[in-house]
């Protein structure tokens, strides 16, 4: 049961709500739905985010990640479900009473205020004394390495500097939760990596519960404690960056994180611990798979998870059709016998062989790194 009280009043948690989930996890989202007309932008999402955790919502544009973030912030209403922070149900609490810090994609710095006043803005609203404001603003500006800019006008700052101010402004109010909506997407590549470290270190030091939205999988892997991969308003997989990268739960995740190649194949269960994988006519690989599944399957692997070898019978053979030299590594495009093109990365420090277009090669898999999905549900086979 959920008690909807008058907006504006703090809603106290009613006893019927699942007690067990309160423990430990301050941010609790249950079956949350957001509708735009007939379209469910967020389609029944449930999440729990721990104290001080850096949690990322990752997905392609239109997957509902920003909508969900804005529901937590209070800018989008919740059509069904519950969002709770500790004992407080947030659903009907207006955005300005939630004590949530937010960092926006395009910084949203107040252009008519100096850097100092931008950061002091939220503290003034909280009736903090003048001396305390001064002290806390300067502290937080030093934290984001912007102390010397406190009297500047925002128009005189670069994008990266503006985003530091935006971060300072959001954390100075000691928010219960920090929300970040693609904060790095307007910065250039190098700055993005610098800022990502700044954000991660500050978040770590202050131990703020953080929800971060991005469409950039590399950024998500680098910065997060845990990631929820989203698509079509639903969560596809939740896990640590490593889990998500190495053990994608379905083909969508495997494809979205670190671009995989997919090959249709047939799996034949032989013994309890052994299966036979038929990829193309003639290529059969024995794999140690602890499942009794037999039937259509999808083999997924990433460019760096295969090695090139000498072609031979029973192996997956192909011909190099294109190569790109990228300094420390080579990218080869290999056309298999069924005309499917596979991308393979070879690190030059591991292999000094200089391959030419037209060379015949075989693809040798690192069995512990490949993933198999069933052909119908696209779910992982374990």
């Amino acid at each position, binding site marked *: 049961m959920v008690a909807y009280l008058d907006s504006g009043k703090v809603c106290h948690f009613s006893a019927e709500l699942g007690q067990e989930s309160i423990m430990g996890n301050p941010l609790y989202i249950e079956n949350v739905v957001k509708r735009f007309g007939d379209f469910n932008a967020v389609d029944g999402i449930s999440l729990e985010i721990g104290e001080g955790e850096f949690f990322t919502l990752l997905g392609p544009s239109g997957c509902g990640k920003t909508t969900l973030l804005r529901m937590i912030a209070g800018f989008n209403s919740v059509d069904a479900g519950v969002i709770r922070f500790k004992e407080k149900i947030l659903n009907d609490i207006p955005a300005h009473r939630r004590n949530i810090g937010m960092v926006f994609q*395009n910084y949203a710095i107040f252009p008519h205020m100096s850097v100092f006043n931008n950061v002091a803005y*939220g503290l003034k609203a909280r009736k903090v004394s003048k001396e305390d404001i001064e002290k806390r603003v300067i502290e937080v500006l030093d934290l984001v390495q912007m102390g010397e800019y406190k009297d500047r006008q925002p128009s005189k700052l670069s994008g990266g500097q503006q985003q530091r101010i*935006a971060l300072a402004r959001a954390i100075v109010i000691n928010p219960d939760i920090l929300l970040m909506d693609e904060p790095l997407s307007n910065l250039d590549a190098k700055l993005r990596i610098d800022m990502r470290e700044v954000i991660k270190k500050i978040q770590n030091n202050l131990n703020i519960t953080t929800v971060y939205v991005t469409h950039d999988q590399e950024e998500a892997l680098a910065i997060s404690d845990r990631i929820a991969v989203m698509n079509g308003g639903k969560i596809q997989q939740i896990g640590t960056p490593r889990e998500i990268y190495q053990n994608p739960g379905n083909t969508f995740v495997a494809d979205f994180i670190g671009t995989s190649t997919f090959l249709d194949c047939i799996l034949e269960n032989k013994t309890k611990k052994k299966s036979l994988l038929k990829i193309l006519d003639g290529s059969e690989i024995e794999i140690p798979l602890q499942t009794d599944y037999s039937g259509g399957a999808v083999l997924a692997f990433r460019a760096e998870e295969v090695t090139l070898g000498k072609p031979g019978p029973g192996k997956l053979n192909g011909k190099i059709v294109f190569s790109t030299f990228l300094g420390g590594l080579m990218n080869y495009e290999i056309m298999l016998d069924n005309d499917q093109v596979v991308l393979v990365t070879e690190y030059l420090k591991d292999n000094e062989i200089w391959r030419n277009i037209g060379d015949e090669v075989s693809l040798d898999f690192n069995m512990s790194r490949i993933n198999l999905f069933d052909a119908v549900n696209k779910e992982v086979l374990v």
Partner: protein
Amino acid sequence: MKTPAGMNRKRLFALDFWNIMTFIFFVLIAVFLVYPLVGLLSRSFLSGEDRSFGLSSYLEFFQLPYYFSTLWHSIILTLVSTVLATIVGLPMGYAVARYDIPGKKMLNVMVVVSLLSPPFIGAYAWIVLLGRSGFLTKLIEPLGIHLPSIYGFGGMLLVFTFKMFPFIYMYVIGALGSMDSSLEEAAESLGVHGIKRLFTVTFPLILPTLTAGVVMVLMTVLSDLGTPMLIGEGYKVLPVLIYDEFMGEMGGSFVMASTMSVIIIVFSLTVLFLQRKVIGNKDYNMTGLRPPSVIELKPVSKIILTTAVYGIAIFALIPQITTVVTSFIKTHGPLFIKGFSFESYRYIWDKMADSIRHTFTYATIAIVIMIFMGILTAYLVVRRKSRVTALLDFLLMSPYVIPGSVLGIIFIMAFNKPPVILAGTATILVISYVIRKIPFLFRSSIGILYQLDPAVEEASISLGISPVRTFFKVTAILMLPGVVSGAVLSWIASINEFSSTIILYSGHTKTISVTIFTEIFKDSYGTAAALGTILTFAAIVSLVVFNKLTKGKGSVV
């Protein structure tokens, strides 16, 4: 448990600040716009002795040449003036924007100054120069040269063409300045250049802006009352006839005045509708990352082009110059005597200080109300989009198609009887200025609000400032530059307002423009000129102050 339905109901009827404001604005619009308009419409259908419902007034209008010909006159005058203003304004704007004509700033100032005073002052200045006892007429009469008459159709064309081309010019310059040069370069690289590029890329791209300017000119010429009253003479146009019918003592002509008012509004609406049809959704929002570079001209072409554009600008300034000069000449009624003096100014200071005070008091009160309304309504229309606020948008823009004289008439008819009696008061003038001039301010407020990122407001809200306080602390302040540039236009239009004031004023609420008019009819040209000079001067000062306030970043038009 699911109770979203309950939540929605609560949101819909919540007595929040914005819903209260929406309600207040609708009440004000209902009382001061819809009620008078409905009154006008119903009165236009009264017929016969028993004043029953009928079309007889409309039939009369379309059957009697006396009435019908004025509609025809109005249409011809409006169309020809607009075409001429475009023929002057468009090439001049293009030349100044694209070629290295020296002193562009100076040129723009000249053009802006020439459009600052109401059109009828232009008409008056031409009378002073070329009228029956005009200065130039008298000067060249002994030489046996007879200039074409300044009165009638030709004279009005002259006045309107040179009063209106600056609007086209400013719009064209604005549109060309915000165009990205890569578009023209792309055409060039595809082998399209010269005139062909001009007609396939450049002009189509500025067309939406250009038509907005053209419609503005059409509306202004169509509704202008002062100019045809002064120099129209035999060439009667609709606003003059409406004024005559209404001010005439016969009771029956109230109905005919209403009928003609409805016809002129329908005509304006048609023009606006046609523009929307032509433009459709073609709103090329160009950012102008790299405005086209200015082309250097060869010496001969440069001299010819420079002479031409300065010639036009100076010609357009003649009315202003004439007004200022005559205000310092000794006069005896309509006769100018040799020698300069401040006599005219001393006279108005003694006898007409009231009208000066009225003008600025009413316009100031009106502009304060307009700024408040403009900011709040723009916010409602842009940030709280709904069918209700779309209707508000439509209603606030609708005065654009109501000529001033018509607004004056419907106000008199609506508010000279209970429940609301306002006829003859200063209040009715202020309200008419607000209603009639708010579209400028409303549009520019909407324009700037679209440029403001909503995330800035959300940042403020998430930092703990309630949405209403955020509006006043952040949104309203950031809107100010756009609001002010609209407000300057609305303010200048308010101090110059003539067509509705001439109907709504009473003995103790005379304004400068009305006094100028009565002075011209009394043949006191000197005092009329001095008052005209004060208006122009006030408008220039407003623009200078505006430029100082926005540090040159803001732009008018």
